[in-house]
């Protein structure tokens, strides 16, 4: 399944970049007029003078041998370029996922189990923040916490582990904020729903202690919708990361993908896309596995 997805994705992306406007050679010179002899040499070197299918075949046969090709703008192996950046994106997405799981699910549980003032305010706050797109969040966070208050740096990756975390905090919040709100709301709703089910009411009337009631009867059943939504939102973070990385000038895969697509650096776009598609598929597989663990009725390999 993964192989098929990758193959189809690689062809579609290759074709899209090929058809998109622009010229990779122009990106090299920043658009100054290059001497025609230089252009001819460079086009030949990168097979740009070949027809579309031949170019794709060159790329595909190299990729099958584990060689993702050469970046035109940097004259460097794509796999090296990806390796240098993958940890930034991975760190950012993990950090944001952590925020979503801990704060999002935590808030949802709290307000689901304890109706009252906290619940109401959570509802209001999450309703607003669910509607904030990542790029707006990034601008506001930079303005408030970097420019005005100076608590966090406005851009860059940082040098040590602690420094890295400090640098990634605002980006992770920007990335997580709307998903976090959605996850909190879904969690709250499903906890409420489970809490009103007959078997829970029966358990309450039988005097089963609160803690056991929540763990066994409410959370276990509410876990499935929560896992679904959390899984989907985390997978989507991988794509949205590009926006956040650009806004914070982070050295990550997403920002590089945008840059490479703009300069029509085909091999780089292909390489990064494959990594992202793989990550997306993997996250979905993990969610499927979790279903099986959470709900005995679901068996792996069978029809859900």
């Amino acid at each position, binding site marked *: 399944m993964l192989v098929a997805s990758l193959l189809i994705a690689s062809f579609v992306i290759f074709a899209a970049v090929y058809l*998109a*406007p*622009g*010229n990779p050679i*122009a990106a*090299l*010179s*920043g*658009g*100054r*007029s*290059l*001497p025609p*002899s*230089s*252009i001819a*040499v*460079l086009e030949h*070197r990168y097979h740009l003078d070949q027809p579309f299918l031949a170019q794709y075949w060159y790329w595909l046969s190299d990729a099958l041998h584990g060689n993702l090709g050469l970046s035109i*703008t*940097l*004259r*460097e*192996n794509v796999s*090296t*370029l990806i390796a*240098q*950046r993958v940890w930034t994106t991975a760190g950012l997405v993990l950090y944001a996922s952590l925020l979503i799981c801990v704060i999002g699910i935590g808030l949802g549980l709290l307000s689901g189990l304890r109706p009252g003032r906290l619940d109401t305010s959570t509802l209001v706050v999450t309703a607003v923040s669910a509607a904030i797109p990542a790029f707006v969040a990034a*601008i506001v966070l*930079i*303005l408030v916490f*970097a*420019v005005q208050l*100076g608590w966090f*740096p*406005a*851009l*860059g*990756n940082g040098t040590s582990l602690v420094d890295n975390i400090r640098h990634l905090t605002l980006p992770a919040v920007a990335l997580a904020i709307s998903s976090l709100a959605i996850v909190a709301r879904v969690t709250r709703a499903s906890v409420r729903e489970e809490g009103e089910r007959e078997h829970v009411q029966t358990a309450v009337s039988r005097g089963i202690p609160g803690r056991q009631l929540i763990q066994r009867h409410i959370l276990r059943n509410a876990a499935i919708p929560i896992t679904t939504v959390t899984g989907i939102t985390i997978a989507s973070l991988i794509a949205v990361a590009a926006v956040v990385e*650009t*806004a*914070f*000038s982070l*050295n*990550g895969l997403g*920002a*590089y993908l945008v*840059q490479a697509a*703009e300069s*029509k650096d085909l091999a780089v776009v292909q390489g990064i896309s494959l990594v992202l598609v793989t990550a997306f598929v993997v996250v979905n597989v993990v969610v499927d596995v979790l279903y099986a663990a959470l709900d005995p009725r679901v068996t792996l390999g069978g029809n859900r």
Partner: protein
Amino acid sequence: MARRPHRWAAVAAVTTLALAAAACGRSAPSTGGGGGGSSAGNVSPTKGLVTTSPAGTKPVSSITWAVYRDVNSLDPIYAFDYPENTAVSLMCESLLRQAPDGSLQPGLATLANPNPKTFVFTIKPGAKFWDGHPVTPADVVYGLKRGMDTKLGGFYGQVFTRVSSITATGSDQVTIKLKQPDYWLEGELASIPGVVIEKSVVQQQGKNYGTPSGKIMCTGAYELKSFAPGAGVVATANPDYWQGSTKALVQQITLKGVPDTSTLTSGLLTGGIQGNYAVGIATLDQLEKSTNIKVYQGPGWLTDAFIVSSLKGALGDVRVRRALSMALDRQGIIDSVYRGAALMPRWLSNPGTFGYGKSVFDAAYAKAPVMTQNIAAAKKLVQQAGATGKTITIGTSSQLSDIAAVTGAYQAAAQAIGLNVKLKSVSAQNFINFFIDPKARVGVDGFLTVNYGDYADPAAMLSTLVLPEGSQNYDQFHDPAIIAAMEQARSTADPDKRAALVAKAEQLTAQQLPWIPNVQPTSVLAISKKLTGATVSFAYMFAPWANSLGGTG
């Protein structure tokens, strides 16, 4: 040397810096760094602008300097755009050097001219690479020949068209023999094509030279520490710099690509970024007001112009070109696009490019009329030409806001004098095709550019559009008088006489208008108030710009 549209934005932004007052664009370019602090430093021939900021005095441990995108290569033969030029000029040195005021000075070598067809370069005693190896004639010859080698696909091959041989003629001497005298080559060898790199390192690195995984070997006051795409180019002070009198005060400079304007701005305001040759910034007003940032303006080598790419349509008649030029609201462009940081033109070339024969250039320039708006006269010209009601097609891109804004000014100008305008609008990425693809130019009468040459000489850019073999002469524009003046200038040794010939070519070009000059942008530096000493003029693109950079006292 077509500037990319993007740039445009950049330049405009840069310019934004300038005071609104700058707009006065009368003869005296009053674009003064205004609030920026042009009070200190050398006053350039372009009045009110500074070529450098006052030299730094205190050591500084580490700074981050922004460029508009990541650096792609550190190989000089592939350095053709702002980020690469900024990185190469920071660390590497050329045979000759372009001073911040544009004048040519000895660099790694001194130049003698025993006869008009011979250049003899004598390498300065003690000149050595970062690794301690002395600079030898073999290195120089190898580097120059590498630049000429078309098989490498380098970007500067055409610079050497008049060279017949380059040979080592002594233990510290390199002789260049020419087919014809060529005094433009001096300027090029004071720019990126003249950068000296170490032969053995280039050979050992092969294809990897100048890539992130390869290394480089130059001679400058800053040496390369690391080059990781995304993270940036990191240069550190070279403790054994061969010119002992120059001591780099900043221990480490990281050149980082910051494509996003708001990120760049917040970076500068919060101190995450300490400096930038502000290219592509729309927030310069904000920077100027900041208490952390100082903004300087210097002489630019740049011209913002309309390229007449077809002489077959209505613009084939010089009267129509003149009328269109006369009808253009240049002040409006300076105010709205450049927010004051550009000068009204008198010629096609920016007066910032007067790097030699200054008194001759200045005098000739002062005599030339300022290109102010005169719609009534322009209308009459169009009527005389019988062009009223004819249509011109302008190549543009609505996605490039500055290009679109100037296109709008041209539309208004054309309509005011009885011409119709059709737009051929393409995507931002495809705008470059007007410059490089003849098919894209079919049916287009002209398009916009921000352009520059490689060194401070009006001829550097002019030659690309008025000479028959010029890379930006798109429709065989051919004016014998201009060509004669340019060819003669190229072969004239005496700087004043050469300047007089180039001035003549500029005057004729301003009448014939193969390109219509729009405005002359200035060079803008935004720098942390804790730092000073960087070059302000456009010379930063071609010669070391951070040798005097340091902390403020």
